């Protein structure tokens, strides 16, 4: 049991971070605006959580110009995918065992 709890990744404990990762897992890449609408959060809030995930190297950032505006989009890194899957497995295992 204790082992499992250790596997629960602290980086994903916040539900916004969990939401960001979930959206990125099933899409090739998601831009900032779409993420903001999906999660229903403010710019600042989203930016700080994405930055945290970027610092952990779970998320990669891509900036490009669309006309004169920059468009920022995100995708998961290999590490991010692996960690997220571990996290999900640990969650499932905990739920299974407590039943």
């Amino acid at each position, binding site marked *: 049991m204790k082992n499992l709890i250790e596997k629960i990744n602290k980086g994903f404990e916040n*539900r916004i971070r969990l939401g960001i990762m979930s959206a990125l897992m099933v899409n090739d890449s998601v831009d900032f605006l779409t993420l903001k609408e999906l999660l229903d959060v403010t710019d600042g809030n989203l930016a700080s959580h994405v930055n945290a995930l970027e610092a952990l190297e779970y998320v990669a950032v891509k900036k490009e110009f669309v006309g004169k505006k920059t468009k920022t989009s995100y995708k998961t890194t290999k590490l991010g995918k692996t960690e997220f899957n571990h996290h999900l497995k640990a969650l499932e295992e905990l739920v299974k065992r407590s039943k």
Partner: protein
Amino acid sequence: MSDSNEQLKQIQEIHNMMTRSSRFISLSGLSGVFAGIFALAGAAAFYIYINQSTSYGSMKDYLQEIPVEIGSDFLKFCFIDAGLVLFFSLSAGIFFTTRNAKRNGQKIWDKTAQKLLLHLAVPLVTGGIFCLILLWHGLFGLVAPATLIFFGLSLLNASKYTLDEIQYLGYCEVLLGLIGSCFIGYGVTLWAIGFGVLLIIYGLIMYVRYESKPKEKKFW
């Protein structure tokens, strides 16, 4: 263990977000119901037209003999009939789906909607062109089954980008289309079943399952 509820909720939230971010979930069941009703009306109009034209005899004989000329009144009637069904079905679909998207707090024209439409459109447009080619060759009897087959395939192709259930409708349409290709004379009857009855049943099931219930609490 009180934590397990928290973990179960997290798993549900992950699932919910994965669905919302990659699939267009606002496709309304009611648009299926109305498209079905319009299709039945269109098929009925076709049937009445055929039976009124005494020179054609029964529908079955007519469709098997296929004396269709490009530009004939009969063909014009078919195009107008099919065009009206398409127009009213699309209008109803856009209306109910927009309404549903507003309720879900989803944009009508987001990435998921674009993906869904693209994956619907490619097989559907291919099918449309193929049917025109069938007409050009004078193979009128194969048009109705071909529309069923291509419609079914486009639903299967699009099912990854909307609610999963639509794939079962797709399989049924393809099956009906294949049966229709074997029994040419019954093409229009099977067309009415596929685009009318099946769409109405599917639409009602989806409506009861996803739209008539009060909305779940928003997670995000």
